[in-house]
């Protein structure tokens, strides 16, 4: 079933055209990766899906919900879309557990005890069951990002968005986060990931979309894009990535 439909989306910021007619679909359970040079509009695309940024024109559909319609309740929509940020954005004044229970209690209206149960389960799921009472300042980058993933997962979203989840991490911490993402993918979560992590893209992605200058230049499975890209621009970008060494 088509879970996400992006239909001819345009978005601009001040005088600059950021997205220029982007269209693609995702089926439930798909794991898609958005790649491209900086400024190509990848992050903006993600933010349009949960309406942190508004599109200028075009449509986005999430299941039966018409995301871009003005009458759609933004807060309800965001319960169905989980987002993981490059800078983690963990709530600094709350413990790891409380970071997760905040949404459960205030948005979903779940009782405190039950919320704590669920939060603990999600922290276990990402391998941080022993860090429930730690504050973000006391966690490493990789741990923070995993809490961020748990926080998003706890809302039981239909779609998970990842905005360069490992770009702010030291190389040795990247592995833990990628492992969590791979588990999620294997478990059937629909994921749209903006990332330079080629290892993840190769192993877990169903489709890779190469975005440049606000337009999708080429889409296809990893084998195609990495081995036999149809477009020169795609080849140029990806070989530059690969030249940066194992990631």
């Amino acid at each position, binding site marked *: 079933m088509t879970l996400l439909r992006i239909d001819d989306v345009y978005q601009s910021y001040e005088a600059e055209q950021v997205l220029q007619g982007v269209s693609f679909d995702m089926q439930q359970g798909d794991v898609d990766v958005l790649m491209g040079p900086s400024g190509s509009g990848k992050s903006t695309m993600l933010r349009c899906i949960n309406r942190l940024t508004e599109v200028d024109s075009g449509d986005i559909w999430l299941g039966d919900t018409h995301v871009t319609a003005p009458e759609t309740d933004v*807060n309800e929509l965001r319960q169905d879309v989980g*987002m993981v940020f490059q800078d983690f954005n963990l709530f600094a004044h709350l413990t790891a557990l409380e970071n997760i229970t*905040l*949404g459960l209690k205030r*948005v979903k209206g779940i009782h405190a005890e039950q919320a704590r149960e669920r939060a603990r389960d999600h922290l276990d799921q990402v391998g941080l069951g022993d860090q429930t009472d730690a504050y973000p300042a006391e966690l490493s980058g990789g741990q923070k990002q995993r809490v961020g993933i748990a926080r998003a997962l706890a809302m039981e979203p239909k779609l998970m968005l990842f905005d360069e989840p490992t770009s702010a991490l030291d190389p040795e911490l990247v592995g833990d986060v990628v492992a969590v993402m791979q588990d999620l993918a294997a478990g059937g979560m629909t994921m749209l990931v903006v990332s330079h992590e080629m290892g993840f893209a190769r192993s877990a992605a169903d489709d890779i979309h190469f975005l440049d200058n606000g337009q999708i230049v080429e889409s296809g499975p990893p084998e195609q894009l990495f081995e036999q890209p149809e477009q020169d621009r795609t080849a140029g970008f990806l070989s530059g990535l690969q030249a940066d060494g194992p990631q």
Partner: protein
Amino acid sequence: MSTEESSAVDDVSIAAGVSVERPWALLVLAGFWGWLGSRWINDFLLPDSIAVSSERSFVPVDPVAAAAETLGSVAAALGPVGAPVDVVASLVGFVAGSLPHLPALARGAWLTLLLTVAGIGFGFVLAVPLSVGRVYGGRWLRWLSLSYTELIRGTPLLAQLFVLYFGLPLTQVIRELPGVGAGPLPAQAFWVAVVGFTLNSAAYQAEYIRSALESVDAGQLTAARAVGLSRLEGIRYVVLPQGLRYAIPGWSNELIYLIKYSSLAAFITVRELFFRAEAIANDTFRYTELFLLAALFYLALVLSASVVMGWVEERSSVPGVGGRR
């Protein structure tokens, strides 16, 4: 107008050497509050049969005065060698001279405390919406909030008090209210002063809170919204808890400021600490004793506030948000 940056904590307490590391200083403060508290209980709460008269000090004056005199004559008899004894004699004399006035000053200090607490408390209630409106509001709300804070912060507190007390019929209005001036409730001038301090403090607190809110990373609110919290909920549960912690140093400054500037209420006839000191000094011509006493009182109040705010900062801090670096 440029922001009034108050990132430097007005650490009067550290200057005066009062801190947890100097227990004797804390003891002196504790003694001060012990005496002040018992004076208040004695004058306001205890029935006349048990209480010491509200006109008389706890410690009888005559023995102390006699001691001062004796010491003085001993010092004189010892000649130049008696200089240190002379110093002690003056100190004891100072105490003897101060004792009769302590009860009145204590009653004044009560009003000072009330004024300060009311000013900062009500001011805070007004300041939070002011600053939230300024940071997150639409154009009109921002403009309104900005105008208010700029107007209040750009004019002297004394002028504001004069406008309220002499210029507006506030006193008439308040006087008509039930209970004003009767029993424990102070008379109308006090309430006018409370209004003045509230309006004034709200403007300054709004600035501190605003800059603290702005120092909270924008990503915090974004993440809150991404989880599905509404804008208001995001501000209430994520931004404010952090922002308010960052605002604590500014808040300490404001508390100390209010303690000191509550003395201005004397000019609109509120019988707080400074009013009393000046009144007694004019009566007795003992300017030195009275103003020194007043200064000591205010210092004790300010130091206590510093210590308390330091404790608040420690207790409310969370690793990564707030607390002394």
